[in-house]
């Protein structure tokens, strides 16, 4: 192996690629499997020396907007998030296709098929298509690295944002990357057209026509892309369209023999129409392999499926949901199943659980005593974070987990419907991500709910990133209009259990909004800080 190779995760390869391609700013909110893009940039000495922006944003929407602003100022910017984060950022994301870019702008969305750490397995390629912008989908870490260069160039060539779509397996897979010659950062340069970013209807109509005109150019770029390729095959009984990681799983099965069928590898969208037409004309059947939803398959099949040739997730050769694997692809081609012996049936499942010493454990003990044991199940809405594990035994305290911030607003709606008591649990970082606006709704209507902002001083589930809420929760809540007498901070230590339960009971009795903030640092970040301190003292 070339000794100059760097060993990087897919996420890290994108970050290093962006640094080498002259990025001036990383913007992101943590979310598995995208988190390591920003973390890599934060730990990079090179990024520090180059004074590249690399702080977390309050949420994905603010991240994309800030990246758009940096692009406006002529510099290269990258905003990264998990797939559901793109829902939060959908407004700036879709509209950025109309404003276009000035400095190169890349939006990375990391999908999580099989929902390893997510509440759905939506496919970001739909969003890219919706915005009508080019999408890049790397199949290995080298492509992930190269696509940062390519994506910024493409973005600046057409003055358009470019999406890089990755999935869990690439985001968290390590492999060798050969770095390229580094590019200097852009100088600041405002857009020539001072109305480019003003989406007033009269201007937006023109911008939209321009975006429509660009679609043929994007197709041409896909046809000429170094990341797409058509490989001839002798056996025309089957043609295979392999998107993203689907290509790896296909080739894995022909490592020694070479694939006998024609193969179209797609890693840049829109899909390359002429090559697809050639394959459909020449082959008896077409198998579409894609990680995530059947985006390309659905396009090719059409509502009427007139060719009758399309096979894949929609016809059942490949399972409709969940991620691909070498064996799933193998069986989709009608080859022998190589799966080894089944695991013994006696094995117990080992679901994730809260860590020993986690403050949320003590909070749920108090909540269960004050609420569940008195009023029964169904009164506690929750949110996205470690504390969502409160849904599982031994707590079984909470009754919802939908999207960032939904706990407060759902508790409000349920209270409006007459639920009493109506309570919710939200983490400190989730609160500043999307909970504050909901709390404002509650305060303005004086809705009778109890909000628990479980403050562990970090973004815990994704590995302990900085929380924007740190040291600010009281000021934010009081500033939004929560009454001082109904705002409480308590350390949920076992010795404070009775006091905690009494506060909850008192606030349930109060007819209006109450906020209780159980505050104690995450046991993981606490250990990390302690060991760092120890290392320092050893030096």
């Amino acid at each position, binding site marked *: 192996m070339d000794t100059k190779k760097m060993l990087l995760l897919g996420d890290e390869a994108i970050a290093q690629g962006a640094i080498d391609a002259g990025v001036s700013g990383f913007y992101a909110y943590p979310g*598995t499997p995208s988190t390591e893009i920003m973390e890599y940039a934060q730990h990079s000495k090179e990024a520090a020396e180059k004074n590249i922006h690399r702080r977390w944003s309050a949420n994905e929407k603010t991240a994309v907007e800030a990246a758009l602003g940096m692009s406006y100022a002529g510099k290269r910017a990258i905003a990264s998030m998990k797939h559901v984060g793109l829902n939060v950022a959908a407004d700036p994301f879709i509209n950025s296709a109309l404003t276009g870019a000035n400095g190169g702008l890349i939006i990375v969305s990391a999908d999580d098929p099989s929902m390893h750490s997510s509440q759905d397995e939506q496919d970001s390629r739909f969003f890219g298509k919706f915005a009508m912008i080019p999408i890049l989908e790397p199949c290995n870490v080298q492509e992930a690295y190269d696509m940062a260069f390519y994506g910024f160039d493409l973005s600046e060539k057409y003055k358009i944002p470019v999406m890089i779509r990755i999935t869990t397996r690439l985001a968290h897979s390590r492999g060798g990357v050969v770095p390229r010659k580094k590019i200097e950062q852009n100088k600041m340069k405002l857009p020539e057209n001072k109305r480019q970013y003003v989406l007033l209807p009269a201007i937006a109509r023109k911008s939209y026509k321009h975006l429509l005109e660009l679609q043929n150019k994007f197709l041409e770029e896909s046809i000429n892309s170094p990341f797409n390729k058509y490989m001839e095959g002798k056996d025309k009984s089957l043609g295979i369209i392999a998107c993203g990681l689907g290509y790896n799983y296909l080739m894995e099965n022909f490592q020694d023999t070479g694939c006998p069928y024609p193969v179209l590898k797609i890693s840049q969208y829109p899909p390359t129409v002429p090559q697809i037409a050639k394959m459909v004309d020449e082959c008896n059947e077409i198998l579409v392999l894609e990680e995530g939803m059947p985006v390309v398959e659905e396009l090719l099949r059409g509502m009427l499926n007139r060719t009758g040739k399309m096979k894949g997730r929609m016809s059942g050769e490949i399972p409709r949901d969940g991620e691909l694997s070498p064996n799933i692809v193998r069986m989709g081609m009608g080859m022998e199943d190589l799966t080894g012996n089944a695991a013994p049936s006696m094995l117990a499942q080992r679901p994730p659980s809260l860590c020993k010493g986690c403050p949320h454990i003590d909070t749920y003990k108090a909540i269960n005593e004050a609420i569940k044991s008195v009023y029964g199940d169904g009164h506690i809405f929750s949110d996205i974070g470690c504390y969502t594990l409160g849904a599982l035994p031994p707590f079984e305290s909470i009754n919802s987990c939908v999207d960032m911030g939904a706990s407060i607003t759902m508790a409000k709606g349920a209270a409006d419907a007459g639920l009493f008591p109506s309570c919710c649990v939200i983490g400190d970082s989730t609160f500043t991500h999307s909970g504050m606006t909901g709390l404002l709704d509650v305060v303005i209507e004086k809705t009778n709910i109890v909000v628990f902002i479980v403050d562990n001083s970090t973004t815990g589930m994704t590995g302990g990133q900085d929380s924007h809420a740190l040291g600010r929760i009281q000021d934010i809540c009081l500033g939004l209009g929560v009454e001082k007498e109904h705002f409480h901070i308590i350390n949920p230590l076992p010795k404070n259990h009775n006091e905690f339960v009494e506060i909850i009971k008192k606030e349930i009795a109060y007819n209006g909004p109450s906020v209780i903030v159980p505050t104690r640092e995450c046991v993981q970040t606490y250990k990390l800080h302690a060991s760092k301190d120890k290392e320092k003292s050893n030096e």
Partner: protein
Amino acid sequence: MKCNIVLAGVGGQGILSIATVIGYAAVDSGLFLKQAEVHGMSQRGGAVLSHLRISDKEIYSDLVPEGRADLIISAEPMESLRYLPFLSKEGWIITNKNPFINIPNYPAIESILAEVEKQPHHISFDGDGIAKNTGNARGVNMVIAGAASVFIDIPFEKMKEGVRFIFNRKGEDIVNKNLMALEEGRKYALEHR
């Protein structure tokens, strides 16, 4: 040369450190490497696995294909059995015998170990005990890595380099303790293969 490894354990047992040591050794030996890790929610006390693929040729899939693992390396006996569908007919299980019990319904340990014994190719050992004997109770994962090294066609010296690589910043004492754990694990596997 080709080696497909499934690494199993429970969040917090140091699976990723084992992967890093082997991965470092592989790359340092001029081999291709792909290593898929599990991050996020599952790390919180859940079952954790990592796929490690080493080859002298280009590797396509990040995941070890089902039925093609040459090794299952596990920090815990029940987890070593969970991934049997990945193991090839000639593949080996290398596992620590000490259970990690963080669930109320962990099966009887005797029956778990009996299942391990039933597998045609396996080495199971008291990793915690071996680690303790080296004066480094936290070195269990390096004992396991050492035992596995016997089955991986990479010079053992390179594995030692991997250990130095990950523990270097913690000081010479920690490096030596973990090297000793690695050696002891290897010794056990060589004697009991």
